[in-house]
């Protein structure tokens, strides 16, 4: 049984992905593929909600990096929300935070993406 699962939903023109469990190579690849599918369907505002993410390893982190690069190349916007402090530090170390907006929760991310903040 996998220690990772992914659910997603769309609200307005924003897609929210909610990974759960352990983001290693398998989890991160699923996130990357799912985000590519949404971008392919024309969705260019993505939110990743980290509430249920328990662990991230550096292999998962490296795949996140390529996901961010894809988003930048397609002029999409990517936001992270509900990140634990340590996970945020990991993303900072990897130099990812400068390309991504991080918010306390989905509400703040939605406000930003809808141009209300």
């Amino acid at each position: 049984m996998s220690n990772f699962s992914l659910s997603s939903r769309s609200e307005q023109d924003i897609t929210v992905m909610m990974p759960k469990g352990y983001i290693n190579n398998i989890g991160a690849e699923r996130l990357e593929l799912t985000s590519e599918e949404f971008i392919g369907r024309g969705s260019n505002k993505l939110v990743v909600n980290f509430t249920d993410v328990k662990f991230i390893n550096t292999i998962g982190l490296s795949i996140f990096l390529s996901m961010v690069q894809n988003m930048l190349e397609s002029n999409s916007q990517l936001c992270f929300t509900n990140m634990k402090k340590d996970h945020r530090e990991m993303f900072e170390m990897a130099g990812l935070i400068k390309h991504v907006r991080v918010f306390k929760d989905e509400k703040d991310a939605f406000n930003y993406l809808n141009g209300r903040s």
Partner: protein
Amino acid sequence: MPFSSLQKKDFFGRQAELASLYKRVLQADSGQAQSVVLSGRRGIGKTELLKHLFGRLFFNQDRTVPFLYTVNPALLSVTVFSKSYLSRFICQRLAFEKKDQALLYRDGITIDGLSTLAEEMGALWAKEILDQYMQCSGDPVDALRIALLAPHRSTLSTGMPVAVLIDDFHWVKGLHLDGVPDHLLVSLFQEPMSHRKTPHVITGNMAELQEMAVVSGLERIPVPSLGSEAASSMVLALLSAQEAEGNVPPLLLRHLAGNPYYLGHIVTRACAKNNPDDKEFWNAYIQEIMEGTLALSWLTVLKSYIPDLGQRRTALTIISKIYHTTEALSCQRIAKVFSLTDGEAHGILNALYLAGFIRGEFGSFRPMDDRVLRDIVDALSMREILAKSPHDMELHFLEALIPQKGQVVRFDMTLPMAREAELIVAQSLEQIGKNLNLNQDAIGQLQIAVIEACINAIEHGKGMDDKIYVSVAVDEDQTEVSVESAGQEFIIQETGEPYRDQEAEKKAGRGWGIKLMKRFVDHVRFEKTTYGTKIVLVKKIEKSASIQKEDTANHE
């Protein structure tokens, strides 16, 4: 040691065994005694027990004759052995009859000289045996038979039973005719051992003895470790003999596990300082396991069973692996890990088993239950394989053995290199933190580092052993996690830092693991071990319930 100098008061914790053996061999007088084998670990005091039994039989009664013989591995030619055995017996038998201790030490006497002596003393039984022996000089096997049956024949002639006490009996496996070993020669002991008026009490290396057919039918009498009271009494007597004060620290005393040989050497070495304190006892111990008599005696055993230097190095790494693995290892597994053929692995493992370095159970091998031997193995490996300096070794043992402030709670895990095995460690760490009331934020950071260390171990251990070994030690103010795997190519010897795989680092994210470990714990250490590579993570963690876990970060 002269038997007259054996002091009852210096013989600790063996009075019950001695009394029982004494009573047992005295049954020879009524023709009811049976031969036995004394079993016990190396250094446990089997030889001392035999000597004291001899002394008691010699001085305390005049019915059962004691005969003590120590097999010398250098004298295993049948001709030399039988002459030595027979002449020692005749001398000791005559010494007992006349209560003349000087006869006990008549080494080098010729058979002719002995014959003359027997005649002068009116011991016709002895002269008859010696005459028969000389008539058989052309047939060494017959001569050996006469020598081994001499105690029985003397009993038949004089009516006085004989207790035959043989030390290092395992060496008789090497009896040979003109340099050609003949296993059948050992079977000549069968008959003399079976006589109820000449009971044999034998001892030696148990691993070898139990493989000898002539011993297999004998009742085994275990010689256990000294109890704590007897061990303490022995220490006090040794200190008193050196006119020193002090006492062995309780933890060290437990470490020595009631082995009189170990105790004797540690106390004697510590007494080089006047009135040694705890630290000096520990230092004495560390010096003994690194370069002292204890280390030398085990090294000598290893050399005698594995004379080839190259093979000995391999053997040392195998012992080290067995001692640092929590499960029993099969011959096939050892062969695979060390790239040996099954035959080579079997040869080395059998030699190590016979030498007493490892236990063998149904084709699987485990370490001996002997912490001193374990430390000596570690010291030998560090010196001979890892080329560590004496200073580094000393520091290692000081840190590993001497208790630091507070008590350490330790958890050990062995994990298969299976997918996401690192999560098992991370989750266990979380539970350990909860059980010991550790700061959860700090545990969370340690979990991240541990996951990386495990991934690293799995990555670098691929194709080697299929296990990783994790140890968690929780101290008063810090938690240390070590992750060890069989990978050899990870550490630069000079710097102790991991190699940088430049090709791998070109790929995004590779090389972040070590950076991340260093970011989330206070200290990261990389060690090349005899087993492979170890990453040690140290994090200061308070035991506190007041600090709440910071669940989310608020930004923007």
